[in-house]
């Protein structure tokens, strides 16, 4: 263990030899400013600003104006950020350059916006860009110039506001990292409270109604009658977030986990039980607190989550890119409808639970039917063929040929509600519990399979199919079992969907469902259950909640996908190993340090190979 391979504290040890610090790059600021300006112009031209202006979010401001001012703040922050410190370079001192970078970027985005505004004020472009409404600049409310006329200071306001916001965002870099993060936390909380107004108001009122805790006045304090976060409310939220963040990151604070470590096993088990009971209690009350509408949103997200967990097995674990996943969803829904609706061609009208075994069976059979012909295909070819299968399934359900069975475009109506004993699960609030149980089951199955013989076979197949085969993994069985496991979870999703809606129609099963589920698992993080859970609530739940977003849903999905692929290809909450794989160069140095530390701990002859093999 002679010389260390990685110098741990270069900056201190070799002060004199460091190269001059790399400073904020002005050209980068210019580029960012232009990109930001174009983005702002784009969201104005495609109607997002106008649509979002319907929702008041903060004081007198709407989501539309928030979108406009977010651009200079964002580019100003990015442009003012010093470049990463490389080994051998000095750390740059924060100073005027950070502010200047932010200012330049903000000003530039303001210039682009000003040009755009002048253009649409001068020429009538509505024949080409139909979303450029007069309300943007020409007539009141003049969204893009914040109410001012162009000549009467509108342009000046755009330039000044953008430059100022950019500079302020750049100034953030003058703060120590901890305070900067606290400011971030405050901003994020305010944004979250402003956007999630319907949820928070409903929760506060729900708590009062259910638990008789006096929380409703809080809602009146936080929000104005327009639904916007009130200014005192925003200040309170920001202060709270700032305080909590500062408290959590104070020096010498030990993480909770570390503090629990020394406790005896019995107390820890007790604590775990208490936490679990608390979570169950909250979840039990959740639908009551949330009310019917939000429960319905939660249910939709839950069904997608169920399917995302299934697709996660197929794509994330087994590495089989299936773009026709909606087919299994459809099979589950139609099986349920056929067996439980008295109006269907079978007309048996069973209860839901009697249909479940048949859903499992039908899903498994359809999994086999799709899996068998694509056994020898990999990667892109597999994706294309499964895409075809998804469409075939939809067209079969729609076809005249099978109309006697599936009802063609009229679908099947009067699917029975789920019953538990004598209780009928009618409303969305009761339905939440059913969906929750199925999701829990799916999450458990994912975890159980991941850490088993079958799961390892899937992963080996994902990594290198030929070698997995040579190492004894029966590729045929492994592929088919992955398809079947995924199909069953999607089948459950379909069954729940059918009984929730009460009817099934072929148009519910278009390719966009497959794509949405795939986006959910990519954005959330492949093979990561927590990531998939978060992503399905954000990507499926949120657009249901904020109707303004629904129209731009796929634009936002697309932008998000591009961003994720560029910056966080492993997803929001990645499974550990994928994060490492995709950020290899960034973490290689850390890994080197870790390895070294571990080897020093193990102290010893590990490096000298001779004596251990003899």
């Amino acid at each position: 263990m002679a010389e260390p391979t990685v110098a741990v504290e270069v900056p201190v040890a070799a002060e004199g030899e460091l190269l001059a610090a790399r400073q904020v790059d002005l050209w980068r600021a210019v580029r960012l400013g232009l990109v930001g300006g174009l983005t702002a112009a784009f969201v104005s031209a495609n109607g997002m600003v106008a649509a979002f202006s319907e929702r008041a979010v903060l004081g007198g401001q709407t989501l539309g104006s928030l979108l406009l001012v977010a651009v200079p703040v964002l580019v100003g922050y990015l442009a003012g950020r010093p470049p990463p410190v490389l080994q051998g370079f000095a750390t740059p001192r924060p100073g005027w350059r950070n502010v200047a970078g932010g200012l330049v970027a903000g000003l530039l985005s303001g210039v682009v916006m000003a040009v755009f505004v002048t253009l649409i004020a001068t020429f009538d472009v509505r024949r080409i860009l139909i979303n450029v409404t007069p309300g943007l600049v020409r007539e009141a409310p003049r969204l893009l110039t914040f109410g001012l006329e162009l000549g009467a200071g509108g342009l000046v306001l755009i330039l000044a506001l953008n430059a100022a916001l950019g500079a302020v965002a750049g100034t953030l870099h003058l703060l120590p990292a901890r305070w900067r993060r606290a400011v971030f936390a405050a901003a994020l909380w305010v944004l979250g409270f402003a956007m999630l107004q319907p949820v928070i108001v409903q929760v506060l009122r729900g708590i009062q109604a259910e638990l008789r805790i006096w929380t409703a006045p809080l809602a009146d304090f936080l929000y104005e009658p327009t639904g916007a976060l009130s200014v005192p409310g925003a200040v309170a939220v920001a202060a709270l977030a700032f305080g909590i963040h500062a408290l959590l990151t104070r020096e010498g604070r030990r993480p909770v986990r570390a503090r629990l470590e020394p406790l005896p096993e019995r107390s820890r088990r007790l604590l775990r039980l208490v936490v679990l009971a608390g979570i169950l209690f909250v979840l039990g009350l959740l639908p009551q607190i949330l009310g019917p509408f939000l429960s319905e949103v939660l249910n939709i997200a839950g069904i997608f989550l169920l399917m995302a967990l299934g697709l996660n097995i197929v794509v994330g674990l087994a590495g089989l890119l299936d773009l026709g996943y909606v087919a299994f969803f459809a099979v589950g829904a139609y099986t349920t409808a056929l067996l439980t609706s008295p109006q269907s061609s079978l007309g048996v009208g069973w209860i839901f639970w009697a249909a479940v075994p048949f859903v499992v069976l039908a899903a498994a059979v359809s999994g086999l039917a799709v899996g068998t012909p694509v056994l020898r295909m990999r990667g892109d070819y597999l994706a294309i063929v499964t895409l075809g299968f998804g469409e075939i399934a939809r067209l079969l359900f729609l076809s005249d040929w099978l109309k006697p069975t599936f009802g063609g475009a009229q679908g099947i109506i009067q699917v029975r509600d789920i019953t538990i004993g004598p209780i009928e699960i009618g409303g969305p609030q009761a339905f939440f519990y059913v969906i929750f149980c199925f999701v829990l089951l799916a999450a458990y199955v994912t975890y159980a399979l991941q850490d088993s013989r079958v799961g390892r076979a899937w992963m080996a197949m994902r990594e290198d199919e030929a070698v997995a085969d040579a190492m004894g993994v029966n590729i045929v069985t492994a592929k088919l079992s992955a398809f079947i496991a995924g199909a069953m979870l999607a089948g459950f999703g379909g069954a729940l969907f059918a009984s929730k809606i009460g009817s099934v129609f072929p148009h519910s099963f278009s390719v966009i469902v497959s794509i949405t589920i795939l986006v959910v698992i990519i954005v959330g993080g492949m093979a990561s259950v927590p990531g998939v859970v978060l992503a399905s609530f954000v990507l499926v739940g949120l657009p249901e909640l904020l109707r303004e977003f629904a129209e731009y849903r796929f634009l936002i999905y697309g932008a998000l996908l591009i961003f994720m692929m560029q910056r966080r290809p492993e997803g929001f909450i990645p499974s550990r190993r994928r994060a490492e794989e995709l950020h290899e160069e960034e973490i290689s140095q850390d890994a080197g340090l870790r390895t070294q530390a571990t080897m020093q701990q193990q102290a010893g002859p590990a490096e000298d190979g001779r004596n251990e093999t003899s």
Partner: protein
Amino acid sequence: MALFEIRGLTRDFGGVRAIDGLDLDVDDGEIISVIGPNGAGKTTLFNLVTGMIPAGQGDIRFEGRSIVGLRPSQILELGIARTFQNVRLFPEMSVRENVMVARHCRTRSGMLKAIFRAPSFRREEQETRQRAEQALAFFGSRLIGWRFDTPARSLSYANRRRLELARAMASEPKLLLLDEPTAGMNPRETQELTELIQRLRDETGVTIVLIEHDMRVVKGVSERVVVLDYGQKIAEGAYADVASNDRVIEAYLGKTATTA
């Protein structure tokens, strides 16, 4: 009867005859080296034996049973395991998981047992884990302890080769095919691996066929040497005999070298 017999094996790739009427017998417990110039068909031979490419004509018999036409996983189950010339691990899986995969064919638990965590599943999982760790412990302290849970990708080159060997051994093979096990290793590591191959055979009784370019290794471990050239067997015997064989020298150095 030999453990492993090849009779008249022939395989064409388009117009190229990679293996040409090859006969080979391997007895139980032998260590055999297959050598030959580049493109002689050595790796193709391994690929044919393990079923990774479909066989042409001829027969391959293992323990008296023909294995032509079986899938690679079935051949492994019968007891023929291999390593690869350009190490092929499952890079994102942990070191331990890599080896556990090789136990796949020796275990039975399916999806249902895994979901219900049946006692038999737990027992089997426990045993798989132990076996994997034992196989890794064969290489001293290099692949055990904290390394169990590191991804295979993070290992050094030599350790990747060791891991590949451990993975092959974990499947309890009767015949082990090693494709250039010492390629890219330094002299000390090469020496160590030579001793290891010997020890492997002595302790587990596994029969070993290896492809090797390093003549010190060939000389050190092999009880018999088979020389291939253009898919044909041009010499066979003890190292000393083969090394002085004219056809072998010609194959390696060219015709002018023998006449000069």
